[in-house]
């Protein structure tokens, strides 16, 4: 299974301000009642984007200036809460291909990497700088350079961190592990044989 090598992500950005944005906020639990992930993008951030009557609230994702953004900016501990992969899936299906935040919840970070979404950690100041640049020019092209851990836009060239394991997986085209895992069939069987509770 050959996968794309994700060395950089290019696109427009949108800033969803706030710390501790949890997966319930990203995709409310009631939209998880699905048997496939298709169509989840529609419900991204639903409760903060829509009023109870379905009309739009004020939210960056409802702002037409940012409608084709593919890079999401946020604050601390992004994606905390439930481990549901519906949240990264909703982000992916909405069209996001990269995230920049101060920090991430563990499971969310792993789930994003497996979908091929690089998660960059940047400082609060740098995120503010990016947000201000996007606000000034929503069509600004941002480059998330995974390999070199840089974020470039306009004349800016910022340092950001992509955890080493994720960086290697993304840039090496191994972000979805299924191929490599399946190769180890006989090694797996050996470990299984040594564990009494695995006996049929």
């Amino acid at each position: 299974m050959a996968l794309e090598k994700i060395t950089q992500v290019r696109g427009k950005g949108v800033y969803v301000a706030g710390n501790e944005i949890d997966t319930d906020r990203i995709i409310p639990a009631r939209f998880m009642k699905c048997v496939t992930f298709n169509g989840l993008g529609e419900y991204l951030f639903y409760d903060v984007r829509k009023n109870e009557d379905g009309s739009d609230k004020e939210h960056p994702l409802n702002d037409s200036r940012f409608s084709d953004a593919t890079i999401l900016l946020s604050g601390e501990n992004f994606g905390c809460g439930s481990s549901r992969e519906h949240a990264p899936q909703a982000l992916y299906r909405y069209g996001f291909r990269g995230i920049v935040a101060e920090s991430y919840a563990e499971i969310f970070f792993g789930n994003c990497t497996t979908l091929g979404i690089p998660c960059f950690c940047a400082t609060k100041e740098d995120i503010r700088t990016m947000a201000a640049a996007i606000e000034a020019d929503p069509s600004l092209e941002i480059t998330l350079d995974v390999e070199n851990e840089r974020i470039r836009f306009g004349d800016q060239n910022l340092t950001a961190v992509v955890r080493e394991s994720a960086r290697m997986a993304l840039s090496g085209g191994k972000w979805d592990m299924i191929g490599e895992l399946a190769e180890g069939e006989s090694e797996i069987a050996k470990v299984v044989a040594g564990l009494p509770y695995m006996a049929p």
Partner: protein
Amino acid sequence: MSQSLFGKVWDAHAVKTLSNGQTQLLIGTHLIHEVTSPQAFGMLRDLNLKVAYPHRTFATVDHIVPTDQRQEPFADPLADAMIRELRRNCEETGVTFFDLPSGKQGIVHVVGPEQGITQPGTTIACGDSHTSTHGAFGAIAFGIGTTQIRDLLATQTMALAKLKVRRINVNGELHPGVYAKDVILHIIQKLGVKGGTGFAYEYGGSVFDNFSMEERMTVCNMSIEGGARVGYVNPDEKTFEYLKGRPYSPSGDEWDAAVKRWRSFASDPDCEYDDVVEFDGANIAPTVTWGINPEQAISVVESVPTVEGSAEKEKALVAEALEYMKLPAGAPIKGTKVDICFIGSCTNGRLSDFEEVAKYLEGQKVAEGIKAIAVPGSQVVDLICREKGLHTVFENAGFEWRGAGCSMCLAMNPDKLIGDQLSASSSNRNFKGRQGSPTGRTVLMSPVMVAAAAIKGEIADAREVFGVGELANV
């Protein structure tokens, strides 16, 4: 070299080092439910892959099942589609399914231990963040995403980076009226919702030695709320006693060999941890949350914080929480009116939870206008409660006694808050919108504290309401 349980279990299950530096880890026990598994089975079909070890995956249905009208088809067509999809997937692949008619259905983290599937020295994963619950038995149990469920179905392994281990000691004595729920809320309040990121939490000390298995499960369950993906307690005699005679526990000659093996996984006394944190059990009070994450917790005798009085970096979140919760800053949390009282969930929906509450409910009445529901964590818990007559105690007090499931913990079934109702809840998450209404409010607490809130119609100190123990002023 002396090692922690985490290290020993990891080594026993490591298959190889992958190209990205992570470890390919064998997951001996895979638990699935209806919400996160159907997409994984779909991916498996798309890739034309088979389930490699179907006898090591166990399924139950919990999140979407109604707790009152349980006959199928369910009123909600989507819920109905999910249970039928899980049934089909299990039938096609040979996975064991504790389906509704089995008498063994329930919340996945209640069913695993109760069936004896959860065992010491094993690796467990489930597409659910509260999988850490199973660590109470000295298992290493991970919450995973749907893609990893697919990986497990296809290979019984997944790719993981090794965690560091933080030992959390709680020594001393808990005051009467202080429960396992208070212990974990206290730990999270002190170490923060991010404190455990990158760590497995190993819980120990005299408080944990004295805890029952169900109390240990309550604490391990909420490890993830403290940011730790894994939480565990070393196996001891209580662990073995709990497991003896359970349907999936080893029996006959195999039992003694299994216990010997299980014992060998416990952390070596001189092992080095990446971090050690100490708590004094005597400093823990009945604890309630006041905000929108589990770290925003206080003792029931304390007041809701003010923005001005909060640390600089907390201010924005405190303001956001106060506004959402509609609580007056600086006012005592005690006396806050509640609308709904919920006892259940994988944190506190086990037999001992209902037994403990029933002790105090006798002769009491739920306050006028309060909706109080008790939802057993599994059909087995339900049955035992009925055999013991506990459900009558709840019903006589004015609680509705429901069928087993997740229910109002996250309200994917018909049990939901309406508008900005405030719920006193024995569950584990107080995030915005968690209990089914985008403006619904959740206050987390122990089951006995929920019962006290139900009786008073407001957040109350169960020690006062029920005259439990001396009123230690902590």
